[in-house]
C-alpha cells in the first residue's frame, strides 16, 4: 500500500490533532479531514482549553496520566517558542479552591503541572468561603487560535479539509482505506454508541484583561479561566441535556458564582454566552475496529468520548490513535500481501 488514504472525521481538537499525529507518524499517508463543522463552530471552540485533567472512571489512571503528560509536554514546548501566540498557548497560574478539604489532596497530575503546592493561609484569605486550596501553573490552549494553528500545520503537510456531513462511515469506504472517527458527540448517531452522553456546558466569555490568574472551585462547576483576549467564566454540567441554546437564568447564575470568587468581575465587559455539549463517556474510546459488510472490510480507529477533558489529553490520545492507524496499515499491507500469494 504505497500511500494509504486516511479519512479523519471531525475537526475539533481531537480530529485535528489526530490528523496531525497521523501525518507525523505516517508521512506516506494521504490524510483528509472531513467535518460538518470547523472552528469557530466546534465544541472545542466553546471550551476554555485549560490543562486540568478530568477523571475518566473507567480508564486506568496510568493511561490518563500518560495522555496528560504527553499533552502537557507537547504544549509546553510550543508555549516556549516563537509560535506560542499564534498557537494560542500560554502559561497561566492560579488556584483550585475547595469549600471542604478533598479526600485526595494530591491529584494524579500534580507532578506534571508546574509548581503544585497547597495554598498558604494568607492566599486562602482571598477565598473566605473556602477552606483548602492548591496553587499551580498550567497551560491554556485558546480556541479558535489553537485549532486554526492545527489547521495551518495540516495544510502545510498537504492534508485537505472538507466541510461534509458524514452520516454513515460506510460512505467513505470506496474513497479511503482507513477511517478515523473523532466525531465527539456526533459518534452517538454515527456509530450508535449509547455509552456516549452529552454533558451540557454553558460559559460566558468576557473582557476582563486585569485578570491574570485562573480560579477553579474544586467542585468543577465554577471557574474563571483567563485566555489571551477573553476570560471564560463557567459553568454548568447538565448531564443528558442536548440544548445548544443559551439560558438567561444560567447566565446570571454563572456570573454571580464567578463574582463571588472574584469580585472584580463586576466590572467585566462584553459578555458573550456560549454552549457546548461535552461528549462524555466513562472511558475515552481509543480503539481499533474493523467494520464488515457484504464481504467488504473497513478499518476504523475511534478516538472520541473525551468529555470535559479533551484539551487536557488530546495529544496523548491523538498519539495513541495514530499508532492504531499504523497498526491498521500494517494489517492492510499484510492482507494485501497474502492476497497476492
Amino acid at each position: 500500500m504505497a500511500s494509504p488514504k486516511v479519512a479523519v472525521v471531525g475537526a475539533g481538537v481531537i480530529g485535528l490533532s489526530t490528523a496531525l499525529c497521523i501525518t507525523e507518524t505516517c508521512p506516506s499517508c494521504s490524510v483528509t479531514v472531513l467535518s460538518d463543522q470547523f472552528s469557530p463552530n466546534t465544541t472545542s471552540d466553546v471550551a476554555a482549553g485549560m490543562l486540568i485533567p478530568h477523571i475518566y472512571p473507567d480508564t486506568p489512571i496510568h493511561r490518563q496520566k500518560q495522555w496528560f503528560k504527553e499533552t502537557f509536554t507537547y504544549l509546553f514546548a510550543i508555549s516556549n517558542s516563537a509560535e506560542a501566540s499564534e498557537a494560542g498557548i500560554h502559561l497561566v497560574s492560579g488556584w483550585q479552591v475547595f469549600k471542604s478539604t478533598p479526600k485526595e489532596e494530591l491529584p494524579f497530575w500534580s507532578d506534571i503541572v508546574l509548581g503544585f503546592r497547597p495554598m498558604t493561609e494568607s492566599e486562602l484569605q482571598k477565598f473566605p468561603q473556602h477552606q483548602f486550596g492548591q496553587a499551580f501553573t498550567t497551560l491554556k490552549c485558546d480556541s479558535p487560535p489553537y485549532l486554526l494553528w492545527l489547521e495551518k500545520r495540516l495544510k502545510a503537510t498537504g492534508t485537505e479539509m472538507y466541510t461534509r456531513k458524514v452520516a454513515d462511515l460506510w460512505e467513505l469506504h470506496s474513497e479511503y482505506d482507513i477511517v478515523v472517527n473523532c466525531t465527539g458527540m456526533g459518534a452517538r448517531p454515527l456509530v450508535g454508541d449509547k455509552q456516549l452522553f452529552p454533558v451540557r456546558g454553558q460559559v460566558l466569555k468576557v473582557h476582563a484583561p486585569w485578570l491574570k490568574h485562573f480560579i477553579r472551585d474544586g467542585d468543577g462547576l465554577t471557574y474563571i479561566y483567563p485566555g489571551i483576549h477573553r476570560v471564560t467564566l463557567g459553568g454548568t454540567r447538565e448531564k443528558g441535556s442536548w440544548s445548544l441554546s443559551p439560558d438567561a437564568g444560567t447566565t446570571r447564575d454563572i456570573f454571580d458564582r464567578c463574582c463571588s470568587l472574584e469580585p472584580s468581575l463586576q466590572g467585566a465587559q462584553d459578555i458573550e454566552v456560549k454552549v457546548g455539549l461535552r461528549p462524555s463517556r466513562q472511558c475515552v474510546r481509543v480503539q481499533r475496529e474493523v467494520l464488515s459488510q457484504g464481504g467488504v472490510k473497513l478499518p476504523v480507529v475511534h478516538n472520541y468520548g473525551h468529555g470535559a477533558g479533551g484539551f487536557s489529553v488530546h495529544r496523548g490520545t491523538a498519539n495513541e490513535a495514530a499508532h492504531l492507524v499504523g497498526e491498521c496499515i500494517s494489517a492492510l499491507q499484510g492482507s494485501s500481501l497474502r492476497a497476492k500469494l
Partner: protein
Amino acid sequence: MRVAIIGAGVIGLSSALCIHEQFHSLVPSLELEVYADHFTPHTTSDGAAGLWQPYLSDHGNLQETLWNKETFDYLLGHLHSPAAKEMGLFLISGYNLFTEPVPDPSWKNIVLGFRNLTPKELELFPGYSYGWFNTALMLEGRSYLPWLTNRLTQKGVKFFHKKVESFQEVSGDGVDVVLNCSGLRSGDLQPDPELQPGRGQIIKVLAPWVKHFIITHDLKSGIYNSPYVIPGSQFTVLGGIYQHGNWSEENSAKDHKSIWDSCCRLLPALQKAKIVGEWSGLRPARPSVRLERESIRLGNGQAEVIHNYGHGGFGITIHWGCAAAAARLFGSILQEKKQLATPPGPRL
C-alpha cells in the same frame, strides 16, 4: 490651615490623600493645595509598569521594608473593593530569575506564596539556574493617579499647574506646611547631591498571552539592568535599563535594541508582539528615601517642610507607607502648633 503639596506623582497625591483622610475632621480649616508642573498621564509614576516589588536588598533599611509591607497590606485590603478596577489594582504572579543562588529577599513574607522555582520551571528560562515564584500586586499609575486625583477633588483639594521654583514661592501667603514630593526635581528646590536620576526606558507591546511578570537579575550589572517583562491590563511593558546619572528623557535606539533583543531571548513569543509605544523616565534614586521634617527660614518667617522624595524604582511599592509616615509628621507639626488637642497630662 493651608498645606501645599509639591508634586502630583504617586507620592504627592497619596500623601495629600492620607493627610486629608486623617486630619480633615480634626482640623476643619484644613486646605490642601497640590502644585505640580506635570500631572497624570505625564508623571514618572505614569510611566512605571506598576508592579509592587522592592529591590532585592533593603541594605539594612528596615524602615523602608516596613513601609513596603504597609503599602502591600493596604493594597491587598482594597483588592476586593469595588474601587479596585478603577484604581488599576490587581493580583499578578511571576518569576524572578538569577544565574546563581541568592539569599531570600526582605519581602518574601510580605508577598503571597513565595517559593523557589522548580527545575521544570527553570527549563522555561535557559541561562537562569535559580529563581523565585510569588504572587504580588499591580497598581497601574495610569489608573491610580486619576483615581487619587478624583478622590482629592471630591474632598475639595485644589490643583495648580505650575513649576514651583522654591519653597518660598508656596510657603509665603499663609501656607503653614509644605510637603515636598517633587521626586527627582527636588534638587531644584534644595540641593541634594544624593538624589540622582536612575534613567529607565521601556517598550510597550501588545502581548496579552503573557500572564506573569518575569524579572531577570544580573547581580553584576545591578537592579533593572537586566531584561524584565511586566504584563499590565492593557499592554505589556518590556524593560531592563537603569542608568545612574543619565538625565536624558529621550528614547535611545541603542537601549531599544538592548531591551527588545534581551526580552525576545527571554520570551521567544514576544517576537510576534506589536510595539505600541516607548517611554523613558528618570527614577528619583537616592541611597535611602528622604522622609523627614525640616524647618526652613524664609524671609521673616519659618515654614515647616516635610520631605518625601527619593523613592527610586520602588515608589509605587512604598508609597502608602511613606504617605502614612508623612501624615504622622504632619500630625506632630499640628500638635506643636496647638492645632490638635494635646493629650491629657501635665503641661510642661
